[in-house]
């Protein structure tokens, strides 16, 4: 993975010293809250319902064991002994004291981490396929490109005060696991007819109150032109984005208003001016960055073990993924214990994951957009040892990709913006679907829950989405059906009126029972839904309402 150079270390240290001074000035009254708020947000510090929240950037979701141990130590020493992985591959602490945050940032910096640009109207943490560098279906590891974009966008003076926040995703595999069509800019690595790799550039995707899928504005961008083209994209947005209206300020609104073709033409005009300038990426620099992302090239070709241990077999079946290298596997560590809080992980669990990554996983850990963790490279001969370690740590839930692998935003239990709770709904759904056996029977199903329309929990792109709303002090939940996150990205459709929270788990159970009744042989839930349409499930959802 990428290693800081002296410039990176100095830049982060300077920023922490600056923030330490800003905190001191806020505490002694030299800064008002109005003056301080934008400064703390630039350092990932929010003020939520109960406490400050610190969002730590995990660049393209990649961690090593030393970093994970540091996250664990911070959780223990400055929080309540746990952290929360988010859908943007970051980690949030829900309870840090403002007075401690500069010290927390020092500890993060010691392992080459920070919280810069995890908030504010700037280019946020770049996201990537969490299986990058390991996936069997990969054309090219997207992380070097994500790192190049990260370096270009960090403290970029022209793009620090954009009309609104800006999110970029990179995907190098055939399957889109980075969500390129629901990002402001999505970069899909492709190969052209000449056998050269480059990028498809998708623009104007996003969720929130106006969900839109990104549109293709450039089918092939040569790698050396990546930064000049991104600059052109951002310049057009920066100039024409709606700064007058918070709800219309994202690039998706601009692309829709202009039309993707017209937006692409403006980008092309700007690009023509800057393309041959200083932003052209030298081949040597691309090669230098690539060298940081070394990955195991070969392993003893041990097969995946066949075991009589039913729990291990079930876990391997659900949580193991094929690796590009024979003899290796990638493993999903589910952070979705049945009835638990999606994405939460305790300090001791973080340390257990760090130990397993160090002993068996080439010292690499990934955070996923599904709020899980991944050990991307594990020798097949070590799979049982890793599973045993995860069982001991309470992290061996065998439900990756199942209906109990629920994504949920923090919701009204933590978030200042939320209208309704999402975690308790996830917990109740998870418990019911496990008790009834429906989670196993239904197979691959995504359920994602949000407590407000900002959609941090990605309900728009779930097979089954749940959106909490507040009606005169009472929580209601709208169900959406038919969304999808990946290569077949789609925005779900609202199925009807909202349900009371206590009715949601049973409604989803009936929905899945209906699927099991009407599915064709081996037909996945999403395929049945697309074949029969959402109305076929409406009666089941509202049977008892």
């Amino acid at each position, binding site marked *: 993975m990428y290693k800081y150079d002296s410039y990176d270390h100095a830049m982060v240290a300077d920023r922490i010293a600056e923030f330490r001074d800003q905190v001191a000035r*806020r*505490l002694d*009254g030299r800064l*008002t*809250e109005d003056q301080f708020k934008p400064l703390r947000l630039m350092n990932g510090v929010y*003020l*939520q*319902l*109960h*406490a*400050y929240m610190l969002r730590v950037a995990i660049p393209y979701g990649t961690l090593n064991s030393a970093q994970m141990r540091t996250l664990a130590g911070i959780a223990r020493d400055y929080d*309540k*002994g*746990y952290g929360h992985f988010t859908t943007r591959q970051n980690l949030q602490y829900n309870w840090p*004291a*403002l*007075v401690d945050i500069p010290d927390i940032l020092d500890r993060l910096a010691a392992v080459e981490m920070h919280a810069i640009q995890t908030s504010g109207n700037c280019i946020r943490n770049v996201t990537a396929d969490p299986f990058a560098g390991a996936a069997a279906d990969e054309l090219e590891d997207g992380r070097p490109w994500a790192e190049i974009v990260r370096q270009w966008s960090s403290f970029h003076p022209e793009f620090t005060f954009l009309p609104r926040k800006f999110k970029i995703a990179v995907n190098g595999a055939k399957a889109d696991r980075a969500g390129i069509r629901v990002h402001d800019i999505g970069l899909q690595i492709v190969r052209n007819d000449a056998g050269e790799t480059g990028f498809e550039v998708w623009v104007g995707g996003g969720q929130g109150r106006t969900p839109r899928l990104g549109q293709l504005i450039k089918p092939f961008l040569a790698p050396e032109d990546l930064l000049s083209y991104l600059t052109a994209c951002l310049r057009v947005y920066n100039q024409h984005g709606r700064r007058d209206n918070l709800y219309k300020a994202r690039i998706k609104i601009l692309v829709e208003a202009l039309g993707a073709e017209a937006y692409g033409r403006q980008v092309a005009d700007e690009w023509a001016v800057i393309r041959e300038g200083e932003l052209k990426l030298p081949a040597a620099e691309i090669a230098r960055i690539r060298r940081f992302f070394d990955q195991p090239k070969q392993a003893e070709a041990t097969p995946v073990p066949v075991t009589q241990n039913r729990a291990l077999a079930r876990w391997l079946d659900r949580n193991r993924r094929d690796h590009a290298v024979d003899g290796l596997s990638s493993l999903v560590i589910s952070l979705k*214990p049945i*009835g*638990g*809080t999606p994405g*939460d*992980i*305790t300090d*001791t*669990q973080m340390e257990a994951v760090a130990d397993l990554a160090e002993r068996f996983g080439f010292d690499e850990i990934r955070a996923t957009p599904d709020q899980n963790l991944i050990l991307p490279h594990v020798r097949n001969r070590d799979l049982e040892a890793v599973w045993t370690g995860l069982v001991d740590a*309470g992290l061996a839930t065998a439900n990756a990709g199942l209906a109990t692998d629920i994504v949920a935003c923090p919701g*009204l*239990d*933590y978030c200042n913006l939320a209208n309704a*709770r999402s*975690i*308790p709904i996830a*917990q109740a759904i998870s418990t019911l679907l496990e008790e009834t056996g429906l989670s196993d029977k239904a197979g691959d199903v995504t359920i994602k829950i949000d407590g407000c329309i900002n959609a941090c929990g990605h309900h728009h792109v779930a097979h089954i989405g749940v959106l909490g709303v*507040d009606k*005169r*002090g009472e*929580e209601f939940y709208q169900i959406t059906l038919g969304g999808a996150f990946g290569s077949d990205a789609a925005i779900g459709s609202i199925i009807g009126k909202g349900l009371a929270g206590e009715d949601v788990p049973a409604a989803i159970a009936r929905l899945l029972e209906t699927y099991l009744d009407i599915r064709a042989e081996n037909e996945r839930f999403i395929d049945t839904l697309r074949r029969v349409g959402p109305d076929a499930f409406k009666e089941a959802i509202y049977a008892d309402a």
Partner: protein
Amino acid sequence: MKTVTANRLTDGRVIYRTTTGHWTSELAEAARLDNDQADAVLEIASDESHIAVGAYLIELQDDLPGGQKWRREGIRLSGPTTGSTHAQATA
């Protein structure tokens, strides 16, 4: 009845304003204000941003958060309704 709440500057924790002009984490110790008093007390509290961030009024009913924001303010008072992450990890 109403009372004034905010988040404590140093650690962000939920606090309420007392009848003596101090801040407390105990709702039971918070000032009970009628409509005539509430706005004036809020104005004073808002000037204390060196202690309390984002002061605002909440409604009380039977000495607990009431009105349309009863659930939000109830969660601020009692904490998340999600259960303990530690307990879930060891279940």
